[in-house]
């Protein structure tokens, strides 16, 4: 098991009032899973993603990454864990503007202290897999939205993480580009045997999922198993 949550809850303090964003969520993901977490705005799906990405701390409950409890880890231990085991894909791509496509993908490897030759091999391999081999020198502002998201996917995968967490990865893309991105993610999921967990409210994205989990009012309400129809464009 790659990821497990136990009674995961998150409360937000708004003035004097405590607002529950997540209420006792139990969840599991295994290696190679492709899971879509679906839910309307304000349902708690982004909160859930932040907690399992270890960039936010739960009010109660626990997140286990490969069996390791994370709630007691220090900031720097969490940074180490994110660096090695978690890949992140954001809605707005979140690339570093001053770095080229190649350098953006290379960045996490620099944090890990990987040798130059290994970095080059990994970065070029992934950029080729996402179809950007010829655009490696371009900066984010010289790339289209779809290309930027593909760079972000390559960056998320370059450290061979156990799980990739994607927050609305198609929300800022047109539907055709969104489909292309989903196809790429699905293919990489199969090729790299890495678990993907995609948070979205886009119903199209669910077509690519093996499992769809619904969140409503901070609780898991439904789980559906899908037969995946699209693995290639």
């Amino acid at each position: 098991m790659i990821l497990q949550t136990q009674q995961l809850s998150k409360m937000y303090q708004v003035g004097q009032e405590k607002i529950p964003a997540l209420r006792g969520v139990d969840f599991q993901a295994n290696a190679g899973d492709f899971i879509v977490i679906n839910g309307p705005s304000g349902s708690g799906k982004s909160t859930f993603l932040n907690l399992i990405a270890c960039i936010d701390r739960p009010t109660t409950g626990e997140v286990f990454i490969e069996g390791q409890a994370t709630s007691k880890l220090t900031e720097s231990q969490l940074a180490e864990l994110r660096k090695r085991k978690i890949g992140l894909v954001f809605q707005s791509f979140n690339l570093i503007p001053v770095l080229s496509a190649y350098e953006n993908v290379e960045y996490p490897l620099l944090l890990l202290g990987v040798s130059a030759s290994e970095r080059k091999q990994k970065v070029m391999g992934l950029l080729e897999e996402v179809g950007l081999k010829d655009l490696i020198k371009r900066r984010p502002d010289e790339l289209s939205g779809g290309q930027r998201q593909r760079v972000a996917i390559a960056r998320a995968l370059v450290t061979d993480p156990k799980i990739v967490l994607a927050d609305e990865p198609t929300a800022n893309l047109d539907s055709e580009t969104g489909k292309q991105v989903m196809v790429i993610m699905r293919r990489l999921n199969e090729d790299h045997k890495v678990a993907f967990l995609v948070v979205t409210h886009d119903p199209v994205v669910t077509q690519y999922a093996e499992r769809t989990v619904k969140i409503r009012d901070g609780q898991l309400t439904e789980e559906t198993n899908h037969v995946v129809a699209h693995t290639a464009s």
Partner: protein
Amino acid sequence: MLWHIPLRNLFRNRRRTLLGLAIIALGTAMIYAMLGYVDFTLYNIRQGTVRQFGNFQIASPLLWNEKTEKFAYLIQPETLKKVTDILDKQEGVTDYTQQLTFSGLATTGTKTKVLRSTALVPANKALDYNDIVLTDYKEHPEWNGKGLDPTDTGKVLIGRTLAKELQLKTGDFFTVTMTTVDGAYNVGTLQVKGVFSLNNEIAEGQLVFLPLEYGKLLMNTEGVAKLIIKVDTLDHSERIATEVQEKMRAAGLELEVRTWEQLAEFYRQIKGFFNALFGFLMISVSALVFFIVMQVLTLAFLERTREVGTIRAIGTRQSQVFSMFFAESVMLGVLGSLAGIVLGWALAQGFNSLGIGWTPPGAIAPVPVRLSTTLGNAWMPFVVTAIATILSSLYPVSHSARLTIVDALRTS
């Protein structure tokens, strides 16, 4: 350390970076120019003071403490011999001379003026006043003359103001009246051999220079008031003076050394004033640089809030974020300060080429105003503004490094 990121971020918003660099460079250039002015002015005063006082002087403590009754402070020939023996053997001493000073009245028959007479060995190399004698003065050619030479006896050099007030010209005679060391009145006749310029109206109205032997004759003494010593380098004055003092003490001589800086109260006051003024201006400019650069950096880092959230989310530690942003500030500070030194140097060269001068209070002719542009003056403004920039970055840098990842990622 990911050096390429701060370097590229530095030029990400060129206009803002240029503003930051311009502020730092201007601050550095201002401090460099101010320091150049202070340095040049103090150098000139120092040179003038050393020319006036020598590098150090030797006299009786009675003279230094202004206990001048009955001329007990005079150094008699036997003592003088012992001192000159020490000076002859002292490393670093290049020349020395003796001096006798006394007050008196100058009379031309129609006018009388108070004099401060300095009797010294003519054409000596330790304290030579001959080079201030007017030789080609167009306004009053009748004042042009020559310096004193060892064959002169009843000859004297007078200041321009005195020459004007007593209506004297070169070759004229006047009478001088004074009290001898024994308390008797004495009268002598002096012939004007030359008129000098010191660019100081008061000094030019009172000072006269005459040969030492003639001064001794007028004062009826074999003693001298002090010895004036010149050394090889100004910087060695203090050390050599101390060594001579120790040797005199060992020889049982009750004489005391005073360095030129101890003697020149005016120089000390000017130096203190300039140091205070420069310190105040340096702090003001640094504070200005500090606050403006802090504003520039705060804005620069604020617009990267989401980026900080992203790099933190993908595993960059807080300390690494701090290092990246701090490195950017250091680069800004160093580049800005370097540019400031170049700018300050260029401005100082331009200013110096204008040949501006001003007439200080009490001076007769203008003195040049210049900005010293030595490399030795560059390090202080460079360090001060670079440190001001780096300090100004600490708050925005640490604030950026401590951002909560989730909040940072939510920032649009």
